[in-house]
């Protein structure tokens, strides 16, 4: 492994990020006959299963701020968030014509309905609404989820024309465990030295993981980690914040950059949760689907798309994250018109209030162009923490 510097790695990730034609995934597919690509939307799908049948899981997170939406708007009213329209645009414009299947996980009503739209608009393509349990007892939600996983596996096996053994699944879990480990290291490093690991870079490095084969991505993260640790970057007089509330439609890169420009180091975030959804390694011994199900039920991130059965636990994950990372405040940034995130927000804010943690909130769309109001709000937040941190 040759030593690259961060700029080089980030530049490569940036190219992948901006590529709305998914050239990397197309190349992967064309490299061997019979290869198949399965697209998935945020927040979480069990990529291990797709990997085990030899397919490439391709994360599709909307069109960002560079895609011109011409047909997508024809399907959505102005009060619906942006991601489904840009996703449809990607589909209608042929940018996803190499994708052999689409998974629409259970996020919200909009993405749920998009699954049905996809069936009608692209009848030749496998598409599935991937339902997950909102109850977490092993016997109830667990059984339901294991059955859902089995169904998905069967579907994919049929699509691939091959059977998958338990060992195949275990190997894939192992591969993803490895990826989860390096991503956890990356987040830990940033929490420790945020000036060495800018938020926009972390974001780009992770985004690359949605279009690259996981093995390649693990290498890339490792390279970045090594490079980031060896470089010396100037420490700025910034405050430390956690960025939360963006569990589906991702903010434009400029927004993430603007936060740091206006004086905030991001020490934790919930961007692209799929990469960190399972918080621990998934055991490889025993029934792999059961293990995946157990991990989902008992070791997964909290987010607005999930029901919290225990009222005492509501929002505590944020407080814990603040303590863990030494953050001085929380920035809620949520997509406009996102019912789950925006309805969750007041409850989370109450928890933070109780814990005496300062916070601010604003909304964005993946194609927001005006960063001035964002800079102003984040800047004021940073100002007040800086001016009064000792007071």
């Amino acid at each position: 492994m040759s030593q690259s510097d961060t700029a080089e790695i980030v530049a490569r990730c940036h190219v992948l990020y901006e590529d709305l034609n998914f050239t990397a995934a197309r190349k992967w597919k064309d490299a061997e006959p019979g290869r198949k690509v399965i697209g998935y939307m945020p927040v979480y799908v069990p990529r291990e299963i797709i990997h085990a049948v030899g397919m490439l899981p391709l994360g599709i997170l909307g069109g960002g701020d560079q895609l011109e939406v011409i047909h997508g708007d024809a399907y959505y009213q102005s009060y619906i968030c942006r991601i489904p329209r840009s996703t449809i645009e990607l589909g209608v414009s042929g940018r996803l014509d190499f994708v052999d299947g689409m998974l629409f996980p259970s996020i919200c009503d909009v993405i749920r309905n998009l699954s049905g739209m996809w069936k009608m608009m692209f009848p030749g393509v496998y598409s599935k609404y991937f339902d997950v349990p909102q109850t977490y007892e092993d016997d109830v939600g667990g059984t339901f989820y294991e059955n859902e996983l089995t169904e998905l596996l069967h579907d994919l096996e049929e699509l691939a024309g091959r059977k998958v053994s338990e060992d195949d699944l275990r190997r894939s879990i192992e591969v993803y465990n490895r990826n989860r480990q390096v991503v956890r290291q990356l987040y830990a490093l940033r929490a420790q030295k945020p000036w060495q690991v800018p938020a926009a870079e972390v974001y780009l490095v992770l985004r690359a993981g949605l279009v690259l084969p996981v093995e390649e991505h693990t290498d890339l993260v490792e390279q970045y980690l090594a490079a980031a640790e060896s470089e010396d970057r100037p420490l700025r007089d910034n405050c430390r914040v956690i960025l939360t509330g963006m569990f589906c439609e991702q903010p434009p890169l400029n927004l993430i950059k603007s936060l740091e420009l206006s004086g905030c180091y991001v020490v934790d975030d919930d961007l692209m949760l799929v990469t960190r959804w399972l918080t621990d390694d998934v055991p490889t011994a025993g029934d792999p689907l059961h293990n995946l199900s157990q991990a989902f039920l008992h070791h997964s991130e909290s987010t607005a798309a999930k029901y919290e059965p225990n009222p005492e636990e509501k929002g505590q994950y944020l407080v814990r994250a603040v303590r863990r990372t030494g953050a001085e405040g929380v920035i809620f940034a949520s997509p406009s018109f996102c019912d789950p995130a925006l309805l969750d927000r007041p409850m989370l804010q109450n928890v933070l209030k109780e814990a005496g943690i300062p916070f601010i909130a604003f909304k964005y769309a993946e194609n927001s162009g005006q960063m001035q109001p964002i800079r102003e709000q984040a800047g004021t937040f940073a100002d007040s923490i800086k001016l009064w941190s000792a007071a």
Partner: protein
Amino acid sequence: MKITTSPAQSKEVLKDASMLKQKEMMAKHYDRLTNAEPNDNKVASTFVPGNLNELIMCFDLVNNLPEVNAIQSGLRRKSGAYVMEAEKAGHSEDVCTYVKSDIGMMAKGNIGPNGKKLPNPDVLLLSYTGCFTFMKWFELLREQYNCETIFLQTPYMADGKITPNMIQYMVKQLKEDVIPKLERVSGVKFDIDRLREYLKKSAEAEDDLVYILQSAKNKPSPIDAYFGGIYYIGPIFGAFRGTDDAIEYYRFLREEVDERLAAGLGPVTPDGPMGKEKYRLVVEGPPNYTNFRQFWKMFYEEGAVVVASSYTKVGGTYDFGFRHDPDRPIETLAEYCLGVYTNRSLPMRVEMLSNYVNDYQADGLLVNSIKSCNSFSAGQLLIMREVEKRTGKPAAFIETDLVDPRYFSAANVKNRLESYFQMVEQKRSGVKKEVAA
């Protein structure tokens, strides 16, 4: 013909006898609710789609429906202030106004339509059927009331079918979680025969409901299946399913409809019997409640009658044969929840609406897209296009909101409706002229 002037509301409003009866029932129910505490009754809050009224009654719980409260607030023009109240408390302008109206109402003292304070619920029965927002709604209520919350997940019918896994999952939730918790909260032991008894009564009323809704296949239609339909579904989608009251109401309503049918009459509007039926429409989406009469008037003034609507299926889809089945009491509850309109996939909805346009001989589909309800609204433009394609009938699209008056622009809606009616008319006369030539 039983047309009576309602003395309670403004004097010019005309109502059928059935509407008056229904109003009485609702009033009685609200009194039961607001008297729950002195009468030592316990209260369960739950939602309309997939509501388990029969089960709730098994535990002597009074059924409180926050959605219906929000509707009542909308009709009484209070929802605007409630929504603002919730926004003041930090809720986003972007989110569901049903939720905000409910939360704003609590903040302003939780006064029900009868002017008395609504009780705090003893249990929140969160059945999130066909709508994710319900989940957040009850998390918010739980934060407020700090009471037992029971969660029932209804899997989405994404592939157009009910799988054994879905039924099994729901039955397990009901047996292992919902029923034991309801027993604990109410102190009443679950009696499955009692449930069977209620389910039997449900099915009886459901038969009459289907008859009434399908009477719109006649020309002229004796009912308006949207504006009138909202009154008709009230009891069975709410706290009355499984009661003798409901059986009696639907029998009464059926007779009323039969009378109009026999006399060849159209529906009764707030301004009296409707004039000549000029347009027959199928409507997709919930209505607007803040300007309900003004909205309805835009239709009947032009001679437009709604012959079928999807909104009258949110609390259960009965016209394809489903009835609550006393012989499979728990499974039938699961199937009921799974089948409600918003839990159906988009292809299923397209199928249903296309069939309505054809079966009810409608001139076309009108979509009333509601800002608040993504479960309904996301994808409606495609639904509209597909139904047009399949039926060859033109469709139109308007946008309002359930209970947020800021999203009802009368001029805007009227402009589109007028354009739509004129377009239908123009097409017809075009056809006529071609035939004549």
